[in-house]
């Protein structure tokens, strides 16, 4: 039998890391290991290596589905998401729409965005046939475009589709719009670089589901150039 105190192949620190990961330490010993873990990168690496060695053992433990209230408690414990709320509140936008005050909608959006974003939002008033159909606001930082319907009446057989037309004149599809409520669209990353000042937003009428070709197939009911305020 070999000497039981022969720990030559592992330093005291590494033995401590092994004991910590195994879980046999208590009280002051465990607290000491945790302090070392916080301030000693070498010790932290030893702990990570022992986690790598021992954790596969947990494979023998069967899964148990937690009850739904656990996730609810977690979600409630998280800090409120930044910059959500008013911006994504449908009631807020509906209230403005009901007031019929397009100017107020623009003002509200920009006051709100201005308070939160250092970057200036881009805005386009999409007009055609002498009336404003939609107002679009691009938040470049988040890569989203918010489109609020103005004087646009729903067409029972066709849906409005939003297009981005950059300097090359080729329309890129951004998504379908609604006559009855604002729509928030995430700009596809491959088009984001083209959503800049002086690019044009256009709305065409397309079959339900949107243009089948990837290019506008129906009448363009309005266009507007992106400008910064």
């Amino acid at each position, binding site marked *: 039998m070999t000497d039981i105190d022969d720990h030559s192949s592992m330093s005291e620190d590494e033995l401590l890391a092994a004991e910590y990961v195994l879980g046999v330490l208590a009280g002051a010993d465990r607290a000491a290991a945790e302090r070392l873990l916080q301030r000693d990168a070498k010790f932290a690496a030893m702990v990570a290596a022992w*986690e790598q060695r021992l954790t596969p053992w947990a494979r023998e*433990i069967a899964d148990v589905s*937690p009850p739904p209230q656990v996730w609810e408690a977690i*979600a409630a414990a*998280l800090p409120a998401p930044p910059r959500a709320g008013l911006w994504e509140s449908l009631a807020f936008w509906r209230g403005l729409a009901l007031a019929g005050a397009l100017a107020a909608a623009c003002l509200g959006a920009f006051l709100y965005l201005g308070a939160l974003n250092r970057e200036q939002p881009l805005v386009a008033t999409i007009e055609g046939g002498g009336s404003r159909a939609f107002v679009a606001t691009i938040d470049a930082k988040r890569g989203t475009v918010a489109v609020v319907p103005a004087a646009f009446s729903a067409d029972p057989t066709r849906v409005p589709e939003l297009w981005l037309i950059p300097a090359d004149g080729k329309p890129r599809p951004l998504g379908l719009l609604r006559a009855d409520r604002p729509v928030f669209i995430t700009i596809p990353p491959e088009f984001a670089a083209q959503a800049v000042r002086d690019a044009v937003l256009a709305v065409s009428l397309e079959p339900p589901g949107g243009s089948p070709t990837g290019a506008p197939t129906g009448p363009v009911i309005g266009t507007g150039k992106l400008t910064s305020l």
Partner: protein
Amino acid sequence: MDLDANRSLIAAALERIPGGDRAALQTVYRLTSAKLFGVAIRILGERSEAEDVLQEVYVTVWRKAAAFDAARASPMTWLIAIARNRAIDRLRAGRQNRRMEPIDVAHEVADTAPAADSALENAQDHARLHGCLEGLVAHEHAALRGAFFDGNTYDELAERMKVPLGTMKSWIRRAMIKLKSCLEQ
């Protein structure tokens, strides 16, 4: 589900959490909570405390996701380590461990086959560890099991196996040295 695909799904979701993406945390939860709940129940021995621990674990994940490095650790290893540590902290803060029945080495149950789990851990890693554990002396293996699965301390293991504390420390330390050397071969 394909193991690598699952692993990269979890890793990708973890990477989105530091930006404040709550949906990403929910994805991590959906893919991993059954495993971590199983781990917490195994160590704590009962469900309601395990539920509290599980909640703490994911709030910790939310706060510390930036520290996860996919190039250095498997996401499941990182998550299980957090779950075991939170469960052990809870165990230490409470009364004596519930799992204090004597460990009879002669009748100690052998390691079980991997449970029908979500197969998030690499089966090869488990087989290798299992082979090395089998190479330990029976009492060393039993002591490690008590620590890993029951959350026992040195003192508790000495009591359960009816040996002096110093003997238990030597068993465990020697077992860990052998284990490391075997896994490195």
